[in-house]
């Protein structure tokens, strides 16, 4: 554990950024986002959380997968080649514990026993996650209730505590120790540790919401699927997709080919289960054509399907972005509790026939 003054920390970060890609929170207009540290970039560590999650650092919103020539005279015409990518080692500095936890959730999808997503897993292995403990969780935050916490070390290589004049930094993994060696600073004192402990207690006390996740996890999938609430719950949704766009644990993507004259690219883009085309068959049939089915899919995926498949809790890190930015005030916490408290005869939930 080290203690380092904020000015010194920033100077060291700029030095490190000569050899690594360093991502830092930056204030832009009315919100924060993660940007690569360059000479003209001023990091700002006094933020609640970034509006955009850092998921794009490992999983860009749009990414070239392959490129190819469509020129008949080219001997390699129509043969896909992997697109060049920058795989330099990178450090995310100041990631909130909820967003670090989110990467652990997303890892379940991209790093499976059967298949590995080559780009996500490579970037993940090259990334050092330096967390910034959350002194002031917002009213929309509920990390503590979903297996994380404002001071949680889950998915982090090191964690920083903002003690006002400087950061107390705790290394968690070897990668974190390397970072700490580069940052330097003084050996932490007892008063620093006590202050951090006090901040942790205060932060955790701010997250008061009562979430009945265990009750919901116990309910049979089919019974929750058939719940009576989906029509009314989905009524206000305008399927804009901001929840999936901002969500650090939403990973769905689309693959498209783009042609520019005699060459083309295969590209993958973020996609969203909120859009009807996401599941539209070429025949015109759509298993999730109606809005309530898509809203149901989003919540069922996070709250039932993901836990059922991976047995690792729900697919949500409690960052609260979907609650803050939903234009129609949909609140996943309310839906969790509605489903958990729903009274249904669970014994007749087994279905034997389609529709």
């Amino acid at each position, binding site marked *: 554990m080290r203690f380092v003054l904020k000015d010194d920390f920033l100077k060291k970060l700029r030095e490190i950024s000569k050899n690594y890609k360093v991502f830092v929170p930056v204030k832009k207009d009315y919100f924060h986002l993660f940007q690569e540290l360059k000479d003209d970039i001023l990091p700002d560590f006094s933020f609640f959380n970034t509006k955009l999650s850092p998921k794009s650092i490992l999983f860009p919103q749009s990414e070239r997968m392959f490129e190819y020539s469509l020129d008949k005279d080219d001997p390699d015409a129509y043969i896909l080649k992997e697109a060049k990518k920058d795989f330099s080692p990178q450090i995310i500095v100041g990631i909130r514990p909820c967003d670090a936890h989110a990467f652990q959730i997303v890892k379940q999808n991209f790093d499976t026993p059967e298949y590995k997503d080559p780009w996500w897993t490579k970037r993940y292995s090259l990334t050092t996650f330096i967390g910034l403990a959350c002194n002031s969780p917002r009213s929309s935050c509920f990390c503590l209730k979903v297996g994380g916490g404002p001071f949680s070390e889950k998915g982090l290589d090191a964690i920083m505590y903002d003690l006002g004049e400087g950061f107390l930094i705790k290394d968690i993994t070897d990668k974190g120790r390397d970072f700490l060696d580069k940052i330097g600073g003084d050996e932490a004192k007892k008063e620093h540790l006590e202050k951090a402990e006090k901040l942790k207690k205060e932060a955790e006390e701010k997250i008061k919401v009562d979430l009945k996740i265990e009750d919901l996890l116990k309910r049979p999938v089919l019974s929750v699927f058939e719940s009576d609430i989906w029509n009314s719950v989905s009524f206000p949704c305008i399927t804009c997709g901001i929840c999936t766009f901002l969500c650090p644990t939403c990973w769905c993507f689309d693959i498209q080919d783009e042609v520019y004259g005699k060459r083309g690219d*295969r590209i993958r883009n973020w996609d969203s289960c909120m859009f009807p085309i996401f599941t539209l068959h*070429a025949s015109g049939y759509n298993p999730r054509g109606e809005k309530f089915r898509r809203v149901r899919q989003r919540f069922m995926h996070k709250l039932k399907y993901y836990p059922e498949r991976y047995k690792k809790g729900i697919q949500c890190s409690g960052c609260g972005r979907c609650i803050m930015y939903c234009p129609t005030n949909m609140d996943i916490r309310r839906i969790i509790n509605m489903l958990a408290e729903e009274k249904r005869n669970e014994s007749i939930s087994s279905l034997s026939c389609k529709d």
Partner: protein
Amino acid sequence: MNPYLPYPARIERIIVETDDRNIRTYRLSFLYPEHEKKFQFLPGQFAEISVPGRGEVPIGIASSPTEKGYLLFTVNKAGYVTSYLHNMKEGDIIGIRGPLGRPYPWERMEGRNILIVGGGFAFTTLRSSIVYMLENRRKFGKITVVYGARRPGLLLYKKEIFEWEKRSDIDMHITVDATDDPDWKYNVGLVPNIVEEKIKSAENTIALVCGPPVMIRFTRPVLEKIGFSPEDIFLSLEMRMKCGIGMCGRCNIGHKFVCKDGPVFSLAELNELPPEY
């Protein structure tokens, strides 16, 4: 090994299957022999056909692993990629990514009687299965096939199915919904009705069912009435797909992915999942 990278392949032959010319079979060969070696599959699996400049489309493998040196894919002209594919020529270069998904339960099927129920252009992986079983005939009991289309001109693999009809080691029941052809010697009637009429016993039998949703919907109760248990009925499903490896998120039914955990599911497995397909 990048699971998104297709193996380059050449279109060797294009066979127009149906009289509306909407369904064609593409005979493809890998450009590089090492890719053919890597592409080990079993009937029931599919692959992503990659058309550079257009995209990819998941198509069931219609050839059998016993047919060496090429792969067959039967493609209905339906969307953006398949429409383009239908305008391509023999000799053109495309890509094959796979094999993907879970095949029919071949270990479980050994020593059992097999009932195959197919409808329309969903007969592709069932053709693969039939060719595969006829090549390994001793491993299976009685093989019965009910295959139907709306009219004779829409039946796939016509030459083969009428040859199988003459064989004694496979029991073929070819049917059409309707026909005005006075020389039609086979059945007339919907697939579920022909199944009900021709299949009398489910004893020691596994049923493989692949067809349009409406055929599946009406065939299920018939099979259950004959005495098939949900564990012995296997269905092959379709979904819009992109990645084919369980990552892009769109083809799920409950917590299962049609691309990776399917496309073949037993009815017992499907009964545990939300009916959203």
